[in-house]
């Protein structure tokens, strides 16, 4: 083995391992601070009372296992009749702390973070946070295992290859065969290809097919934003409102029955309920406070201030200008349920996302298969009779049969 050969292998392995190590550290470096900020900070601060009490000294006040139980499901602890829990609950205006699906280790990390935080001076010089014990129980991503396997296989194959070459060299030497001309890597590859033409052809065919199909689909998906679920300025949950609370879609999206756009509800619609519902089960007061801020509303006094600022939602459904879509036509006239296009909003959408592809093909497929609701709408009376006599009394009168595929129904 030449030195060059070894050094090349070593440098490759070093690269692979350092990459692997780097990903280990980035993936699992979850600390208490992040957990605290993501889960707790909207209601709690370490040294002051926000919605919930200040957390300073909590590990002195209560044992760690109690804290874990409490954080996981505070209401269960309250209901179990725990004296301290009931006391805290009552002290804080009976606002329930939502249940958190955190692991014990994570909760411990949070507690450690809070402990570290309380020792910091109140203001001024920054103190380095002693790293909270890092939880290593995160499930490792699958590609990491694959990477390790690949490295092992690479080492194995190069070792075996070396062994095989040495053996065949020995055999040749023994039988007095001449040493074959030494080939460069490139020449040997070409040599291999020449000897395995069929295999190469098959591989090439598969690769081409795979590439074409992949390419086709990736090109077809250009401009399609199915599944687009952007972050919104307010963490509004459709699941909570439309699902758990069973508010009708058109209560907020009132334009859907009347006009072209369903409309994002104006903040005054939110206030119909949130004038009274000041705290929510998911995010407490944090998100609702954003509505108040937009309206410059003071929930304590119940007064509106002079500096309202509109909420800038991110538009989820972006139909191009060239297509005209009218909600009323579909909702009021066609009696299509909102969920047909927007999906199970009430069941699964905590954040609104684009459920359907909104492509022309998708529209047309529906127009080809959907029966028009002509019965009971006097607009269609004569036309309905005419169509039935034309296509037969039991025919399926789809949107297509009344011209629903014509260009100028949607494009003008």
């Amino acid at each position: 083995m030449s030195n060059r050969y070894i050094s090349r292998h070593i440098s490759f392995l070093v690269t692979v391992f350092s990459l692997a190590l780097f990903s280990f550290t980035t993936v699992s470096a979850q600390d208490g601070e992040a957990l605290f900020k993501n889960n707790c900070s909207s209601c709690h601060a370490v040294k002051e009372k926000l919605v919930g009490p200040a957390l300073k000294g909590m590990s002195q006040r209560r044992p760690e296992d109690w804290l874990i139980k409490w954080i996981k499901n505070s209401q269960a602890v309250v209901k179990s009749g725990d004296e301290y829990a009931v006391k805290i609950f009552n002290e804080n205006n009976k606002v329930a702390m939502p249940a958190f699906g955190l692991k014990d280790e994570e909760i411990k990390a949070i507690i450690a973070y809070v402990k570290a935080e309380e020792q910091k001076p109140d203001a001024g010089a920054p103190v380095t946070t002693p790293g909270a014990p890092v939880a290593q129980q995160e499930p490792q991503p699958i590609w990491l295992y694959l990477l390790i396997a690949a490295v092992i296989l690479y080492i194995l194959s190069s070792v075996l290859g070396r062994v095989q070459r040495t053996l065949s060299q020995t055999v040749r030497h023994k039988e007095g065969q001449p040493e074959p001309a030494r080939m460069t890597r490139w020449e040997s590859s070409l040599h291999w290809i020449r000897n395995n033409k069929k295999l190469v052809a098959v591989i090439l065919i598969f690769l081409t097919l795979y590439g074409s199909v992949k390419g086709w689909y990736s090109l077809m998906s250009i401009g399609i934003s199915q599944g687009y679920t952007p972050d919104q300025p307010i963490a509004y949950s459709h699941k909570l409102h439309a699902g758990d609370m069973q508010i009708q879609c058109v209560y907020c999206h009132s334009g859907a029955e009347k006009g072209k756009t369903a409309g994002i509800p104006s903040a005054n619609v939110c206030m119909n309920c949130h004038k009274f519902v000041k705290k929510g089960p998911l995010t407490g007061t944090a998100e609702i406070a954003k509505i108040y801020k937009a309206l410059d509303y003071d929930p304590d006094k119940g007064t509106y201030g002079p500096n309202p600022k509109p909420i800038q939602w991110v538009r989820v459904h972006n139909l191009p200008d060239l297509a005209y879509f009218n909600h009323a036509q579909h909702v009021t006239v066609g009696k299509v349920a909102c969920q047909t296009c927007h999906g199970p909003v009430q069941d699964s959408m905590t954040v609104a996302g684009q459920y359907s592809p909104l492509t022309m093909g998708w529209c047309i497929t529906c127009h080809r298969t959907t029966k028009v609701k002509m019965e009971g709408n006097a607009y269609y009376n004569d036309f309905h009779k005419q169509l039935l006599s034309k296509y037969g009394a039991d025919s399926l009168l789809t949107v297509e049969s009344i011209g629903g595929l014509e260009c100028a129904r949607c494009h003008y």
Partner: protein
Amino acid sequence: MSKKYWKGVEELRNDAEFVRLKNNEFFEQLPLDQVIEKKAQDVNTTPRRDFLKFLGFSVAAASLAACEAPVRKTIPYLIRPDQITPGIANWYASSYFDGYDYCSVIVKTREGRPIKLEGNTLSSVTKGGVNARVQAAILSLYDSARFKTPMVNGKASKWPEVDNDINGKLSAIAAKGGQIRILSSTVISPSTKKAIADFSAKYPTTKHVVYDSVSVSAMRQANLESFGVNTIPTYNFDKANVIVSLDADFLVNWISPVEHARQYAETRKINGGKKSMSRHIQFETALSVTGSNADLRIPVKPSQQGAVAANLYNAIAAGTGASAVSAPSVDAEVSKKIAAIAAELLANKGKSLVVSGINNPAVQNLVNGINSLLENYGTTIDLDNANNLRQGSDTDLSAFLDEVTKGGVAAVLFYNCNPVYTLPNGSAFAAAMKKMELTVSFSDRPDETTSVCQYICPDHHALESWSDAEPRTGVYSIGQPTISPLFATRQAQESLLTWAGTPANFHDYMAAYWNANIFSKASGSWNKVLQDGVFELPAATPKNYKTAANLNAAADAIGKTNAGGFEMVLYEKVGLGNGQQANNPWLQELPDPISKITWDNYLAVSPKDAREKGWKQGNVVTVKAGNVSVKAPVVIQPGQAFGTASLAIGYGRTVAGKVADNRGVNAYPFTSFSGANLSRVVSGVDIQKTADEDYMLAATQTHHTMMGRAIVKETTLAEWVKNPAAGNAEELLSVKVGKHEEVKKKAGDMNLWADFDSGNHHWGMSIDLNSCIGCGACVVACTAENNVSVVGKDEVNRSREMHWIRIDRYYSSDADPKEGESGDIKKMEDPSDMPRVVFQPVMCQHCAHAPCETVCPVIATSHSSEGLNQMTYNRCVGTRYCANNCPYKVRRFNWFQYSDNAQFDFNMNDDLGKMVLNPDVVVRSRGVMEKCSMCVQRLQDGKLTAKKEGRKLVDGEVKTACAQSCPTHAITFGDFNNPESELNKMWDPEGRSYHLLGELNVQPNVYYQTKVRNAEERKEA
């Protein structure tokens, strides 16, 4: 042994070199190496294939890079007004009056921005009509040239500072007893008049001077002399059987054109039940829109018009036994016609109408005398319900100008007027203004007057303000804001009230005024007025009046009119009118109905004069009269009286904005005081051809005659009464039967294609050529409704205008063949010197067998089950085959992207201008074809409304923009599948209905109704 042949001695010798080359096909090597080497050396040239590779790569890279969709924000209302549903239009009744045009309108607003004006059918004045200028006013609202703040000496300022300054100056002037003047155009708002009175009460030296840029002051003077009332009467053209107009362009410009056009059309409509129509005779100098519609048009020089009036008076006096006046002689031919006209008028006593647009009290007095003898007062002329739209007094103006010249005026407030531009001697006035202690303009946008004013206190646009109007005495209408003010402007009335020391909200002020002064006359409620837009008191019963004026004196005055040399009249164009809205690109691009020229004014001369003087179309000439001289291009205008020229006012603006500035020439300096009245007639005009290069004039129609084809089918009333199909002979085609036999067949009997099944609707349109006056309101309505691009003069000159509807104007030709003849093709191209004129609106005919559809390679244009020819922009690849195959030439190609393109710096190039766009219609991009969609967005909307309400669509409920806006109801839109529709009832192929180019059998869904003229002979030369 067989013989052997050698190719040459080399083969015979079998040379080594020969053997080497024997098997080579080519004797010499192809010089590939050289070529390749040369390429390698010449690194700067990119071979074609490489170029294509690069191109392909960059296209792919660019499109992939563009895949990332931008994050779009959506910002809902914080507190949504309960009447607004995003996506649904709100309509508000309002009024538009800018001192020139009046219309009671309804304003379409979308999400709080007005996007279209339509007529208010509840108004008994405009009856749902809106003319081109008022429709275009919606775009003037979004003019980026508008003032954004009050200005002091050209610098932006703030209202409190401006108020402080002006209050101080006014008090100082008042303390010295200095004269204060409010100069304005006609004010028809009673509350504004009260506000002016309040201001005058605070500053008693104030006088309100009213003048009109296009003055009819002589009529007021004549009515005062004749009947003792200083008013303009209301005319009832609808009650007249015979209408004689002396140079009054009453259909599109004169006093209250929308009202007149509607009335006039009533008298021109004929059908199975109504077989009579009015007879319209026009004496005029320039070929006007009104003159083109006349049954008999007699061209006369302006100096002869007084003589015509006097002679007509005498002819009628002879018939009624009144005493004659001393009339100057007229041309023998004209004299003969006058006698015949007098007979017609006398036969229709009390049902005739003579009007004159000449601003000369003598002529007006004679016209009053004629109407008096014909007993028209009380029937066709209503002096008891005055028309208030022109209240200017030239006498007052003249007195005011004298005062100004003498330096006797300390302060002037300019409201709705632009004297520096419109006065005969505007520059002298501007110089005088600079010497005044205080000059304030209320103009909402820059004009020639604001450029020399100390203070500019910009008024709201009409659509941003509260206003009321009394266009006819006892007929009120109200204007309400439909958008919150775009800029820091303030209503002029509020400014006046502020300075009067009684600041008030004008809405409250107006409501209080109405409660005190209008609702006291008849019970009414403010909310109802807001909803209807109008409030009308019962009209006074019109009485008959006899003139008391001294007609002999009038006739003598006419006799003394000395006119020498070439004469010129100044006229108003349908688009720009008095020039107030000159910065409006829609109006600039609206083709003149007669000349079809856009973006310019020009000196129109008769073909005969042009031949004699050697002028060619586009030659630049110097026009000189007195000490006024301008350079203008010549347009050869058939129909122009010999020895005369005409020049339009409204052009040649210098401080109006990017669209208007330095377009055409300003004709106002040619106006002059003749006696106490402003005259728009100029005599002794010297016209000299210059050596300048020919001026490019952009016209949308360059072909002037029908070339002997029956494109506009035409007949006379007498013939039509005899035979309802007169003039509507169907073209027959010769078809070979057998070897030599030929038979004539109707085109419709030879169908090449299968017919379409009809859906729930079958849309169609009828165009009554008898009612169409060619006014162009439909063109602007279509532009507003369908986001039609403005392309500018250069592109129009390349025939690339984008209007979806055009109004073709055809002149008759002396060479037109009679039926059965074939004419001289070359000669047929030349219009007669005094031609008959016809107008024909043409938009996409929505053919059932559309030639465009069959040639589209990508099926971007297709037929709908509702009879529409659909154009799908995003499918179009721009081959333009369809436009080439369209027999009607109604397809328009986007040669450029006209929005967001600095090359086309019109309304679609700035955010403000884009606010006028209809959000339901796509703005087309470069490279696609477009055309009339029959306002499919309106059809879809109307259908949806009916569906939502679960009822049938009612006929007339849905209208295209052109049909809606037509002041004469010449365009009827409807559903052929609805047996009750007006469209179906009017369809009468055995009568007047015909398809344009019916011989092609493309089966259009638009049909025309033959034009019927109330003229004896078919041709008048």
